[in-house]
């Protein structure tokens, strides 16, 4: 049994413990302990029934902790040592865990950490490594999050919107560290899509698959950023693209558009173009218009200006920037690109340099610095 199969069992096992009377925080701790023991013991001595093994070990761990806590407080253990019999509706439990871990009262970074641990079955150490913080800090972040939602029970209705935001955040965190967070986000979104019937869940899954399909072509040697127009399209994963497009089409047919479906539609149009010059920018602008109506987001307005620049020419793109906040990250990069297309190389070089100073990531900064250098060379020639 490999680690990912083991991790898939984690939310269901937490659900079993909660149904037996454990509170969520203690159940989650007990299952994390059982998980760590399983990771150590199973390679040499795999159990016949992995889920039963986890339930048994976690339940004993929970009882030990509850007894220790009770004796510390001089009280009796409130839960029965012998679990009551009864069916465990595992799928509902898992869905509810998503809602609980992404509860709107939690700061995003805490909701992300808790989701990765309780739903994703990652260890605290793995999550800490993925986010480049000490394990002790991550442990505190998770236990604080659990204290914050301590009054909530698994059977309360949840907000799917916050769950999707959390999964999107995990996906966008990318590929750093020992844990592939993008792949993990896809796994968790796939699982969520199997548990719900919401077109936006499918939309988010399609969006992730379509971006994941371009993963290897997005970076060159040494982590160098390769812009969409220059990517080697023969390296795009056609299987993932086909799957993403099918999922998106099914979702769109439900006629309940949302921001993730609209974003996925834009990604699908890019994936559909055999070369950058064959991109259907007119349709992409239409999807940005939809996206803008749905979100009103200034970042969408900025990206829309790029699409308008491609569809109707750089002057139209610059005009579409009117009313966009120049303080946005990538604003200077977008204006630099549009000015270059419009033939104003001097202005473009200045703006690329300005954009590189405003970049929020190293590959982006290096890319923009190279762009500034490239345009300055064109000026000299």
């Amino acid at each position, binding site marked *: 049994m490999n680690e990912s199969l083991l991790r898939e069992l984690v939310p269901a096992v937490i659900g079993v413990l909660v149904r037996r009377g454990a509170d969520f925080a203690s159940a989650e701790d007990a299952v994390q302990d059982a998980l760590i023991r399983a990771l150590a013991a199973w390679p040499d001595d795999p159990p016949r029934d992995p889920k039963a093994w986890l339930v048994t070990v976690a339940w004993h761990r929970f009882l030990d902790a509850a007894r220790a806590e009770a004796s510390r407080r001089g009280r009796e253990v409130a839960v029965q040592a012998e679990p009551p019999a009864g069916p465990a509706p595992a799928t509902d439990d898992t869905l509810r865990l998503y809602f609980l871990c992404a509860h709107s009262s939690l700061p995003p*970074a805490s909701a992300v950490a808790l989701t990765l641990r309780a739903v994703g079955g990652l260890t605290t150490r793995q999550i800490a490594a993925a986010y480049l913080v000490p394990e*002790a800090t991550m442990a505190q*972040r998770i236990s604080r999050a659990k204290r914050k939602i301590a009054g909530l029970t698994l059977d309360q209705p949840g907000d799917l919107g916050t769950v999707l935001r959390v999964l999107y955040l995990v996906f966008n965190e*990318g590929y750093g560290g020992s844990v592939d967070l993008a792949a993990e986000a896809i796994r968790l979104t796939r699982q969520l899509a199997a548990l719900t019937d919401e077109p936006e869940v499918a939309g988010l899954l399609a969006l992730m698959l379509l*971006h994941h399909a371009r993963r290897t072509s997005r970076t060159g040697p040494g982590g160098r950023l390769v812009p969409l127009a220059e990517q080697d399209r023969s390296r795009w994963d056609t299987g993932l693209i086909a799957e993403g497009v099918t999922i998106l089409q099914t979702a769109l047919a439900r006629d309940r558009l949302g921001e993730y479906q609209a974003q996925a539609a834009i*990604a699908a149009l*890019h994936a559909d173009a055999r070369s950058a010059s064959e991109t259907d920018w007119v349709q992409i602008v239409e999807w940005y218009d939809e996206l803008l109506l749905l979100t009103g987001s200034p970042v969408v307005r900025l*990206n829309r200006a790029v699409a308008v620049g491609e569809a109707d020419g750089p002057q139209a793109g610059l005009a579409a920037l009117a009313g966009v906040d120049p303080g946005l990250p990538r604003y200077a990069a977008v204006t630099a690109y549009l000015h270059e297309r419009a033939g104003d190389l001097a202005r473009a070089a200045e703006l690329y340099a300005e954009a590189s100073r405003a970049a929020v*990531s190293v590959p982006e900064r290096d890319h923009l610095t190279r762009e500034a250098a490239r345009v300055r060379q064109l000026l000299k020639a």
Partner: protein
Amino acid sequence: MKYLILKHYRGGPAPVVDYGSIDQWTPEEVDAHVQFMRDFAARLEETGEFVDGQALSPQGAFVRYDGEGRPPVTDGPFAETKDLIAGWMVIDVESWDRAVQLAGELSAAPGPRGEPIHEWLEVRPFLAEPPTVTE
């Protein structure tokens, strides 16, 4: 989002409180200052926001390459430099505002007579990994 809070021995805007050099303080004042820093880091670990903290000796030097086959050139210690870093703390927080709030609290570390020293701290965002979805 990760931020670096930089503490300087010298440099930055003019101090608003003349707290002198720490070696001129009483031992109790020094202890109180050090304890404040430790408590601050411990509190950030509690909130899940602490990443790293280190102090730097004022000793050391600038070093540079001086050509093939030649030893590196050194310049220092830094008696003359205008800017001298004393140490740092790395925090992982939700926003720039939270980073500023924490740096403000750290700047209230006690100095002579237990009064806050109002020290200028430099707060700088980390360059992160690029997001997956960009268009």
